[in-house]
């Protein structure tokens, strides 16, 4: 049969039928881009050996509009996001699985671009995509492409990171500036359309994590402040550990463009999504050492200690403002919608 028309072709229902056209899509697009011994086997599952240690599994479904943005696309995001969720256990991510839900009519050229980008992200991270699945839904029952990735990894001996481990006195660190991803996506929203000299921070953080846990195995927990941003993620951690938190606004790295965008849209950078940053909580006595390790890593150059875990039965996250007042950093309430008042 003639090859897929990756220039002008579109996804058709037939590509999800499980028949020859499905096999062709897998062979000419996915398997070619992801190429590895496991996919080449052509089975409905991958088999591999894992190094010894506790196993970690994480999954995320990725839905994003637009699909392409400065700094990445849904494909690289799907790879980074799941690698990061695995890495946040202190683990080394080893293998990825990917499930695609494609909308009828989606341009194959866009799909190819996304798949190439996933392949590049996986290659760069050293985490192969070893199994996958593709479904096609009728036009109007999807949104171009949704990608669910699942990762497995292994935790080095002796680590037990978890969101419930924060203790009063611990210091709170972030690995870099916040809000870049969310503001980049907003800048592309039709009607909002602003240009900013920033892109998504989407990146795989397992290299940084490996350096951190090796140097400071005492780290209590790591988490990537994605949806809901720094503010909401800290509330999650505070709740899980039954502690409060006190932040210092002056220490939280926020790019000028992110601040400006938030000002004119009525948003709070604390709640804007990140896709390549992490929060670390560690005992106070190791905080400076951890900060130094992070600063020494390319992905942690702008890392900062931004606050302290405190005792608080109400699990409030509070923040000393730049201005000098103290404010509540509550759970995100609803979606952050651009506002006029």
């Amino acid at each position, binding site marked *: 049969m003639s090859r897929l028309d990756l220039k002008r072709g579109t996804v058709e229902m037939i590509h999800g039928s499980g028949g020859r056209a499905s096999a062709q899509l897998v062979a000419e697009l996915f398997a070619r881009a992801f190429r590895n011994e496991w996919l080449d086997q052509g089975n409905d599952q991958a088999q591999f050996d894992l190094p010894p240690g506790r196993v970690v599994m994480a999954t995320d479904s990725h839905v994003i509009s637009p699909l392409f943005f400065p700094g990445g696309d849904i494909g690289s995001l799907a790879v980074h996001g799941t690698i990061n969720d695995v890495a946040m256990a202190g683990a080394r991510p080893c293998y990825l699985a990917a499930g695609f839900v494609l909308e009828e009519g989606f341009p194959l050229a866009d799909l190819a671009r996304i798949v190439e980008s996933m392949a590049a992200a996986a290659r760069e991270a050293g985490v192969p995509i070893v199994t996958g699945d593709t479904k096609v839904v009728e036009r109007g029952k999807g949104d171009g492409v949704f990608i669910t990735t699942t990762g497995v990894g292994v935790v080095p001996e002796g680590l037990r990171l978890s969101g419930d481990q924060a203790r009063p006195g611990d210091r709170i660190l972030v690995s870099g500036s916040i809000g870049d991803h969310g503001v980049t996506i907003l800048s592309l929203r039709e009607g909002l359309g602003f240009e900013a000299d920033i892109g998504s921070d989407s990146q795989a953080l397992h290299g940084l994590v490996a350096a951190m846990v090796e140097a400071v195995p005492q780290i209590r927990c790591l988490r990537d402040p994605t949806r809901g941003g720094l503010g909401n993620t800290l509330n999650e951690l505070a709740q899980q550990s039954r502690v409060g938190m006190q932040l210092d606004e002056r220490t939280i790295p926020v790019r000028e463009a992110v601040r*400006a965008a938030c000002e004119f849209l009525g948003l709070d950078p604390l709640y804007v999504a990140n896709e390549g940053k992490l929060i670390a909580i560690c005992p106070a006595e190791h905080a400076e050492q951890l900060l130094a390790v992070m600063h020494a890593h390319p992905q942690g150059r702008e890392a900062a200690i931004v606050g302290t875990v405190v005792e608080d039965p109400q699990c409030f996250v509070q923040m000393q403002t730049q201005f000098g007042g103290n404010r509540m950093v509550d759970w995100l309430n609803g979606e952050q919608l651009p506002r006029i008042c």
Partner: protein
Amino acid sequence: MCLAIPVRIEELLDEQTAVACIGGLRKTVNVALLDDLKVGDYVILHVGFALQKLDEAEAQRSLALFAEMGQLAEAERAALGEMQS
């Protein structure tokens, strides 16, 4: 509240539109509500419309006033300190 922010006019595109800039962000805005705008002017931006020019001299005056107040406060504190000591 009416969310608005001072932005700098970078480029006048036509009668209606200009490119404005703030904190490294560039955005096309509607300037039909203001006359005699020029590049470099600051305007108050609301729902994509420039509502009013920002008077930079007045802004400096306000800031100077605040600073003065600071000095005044300092002076008073100093005076108070003297009295108490």
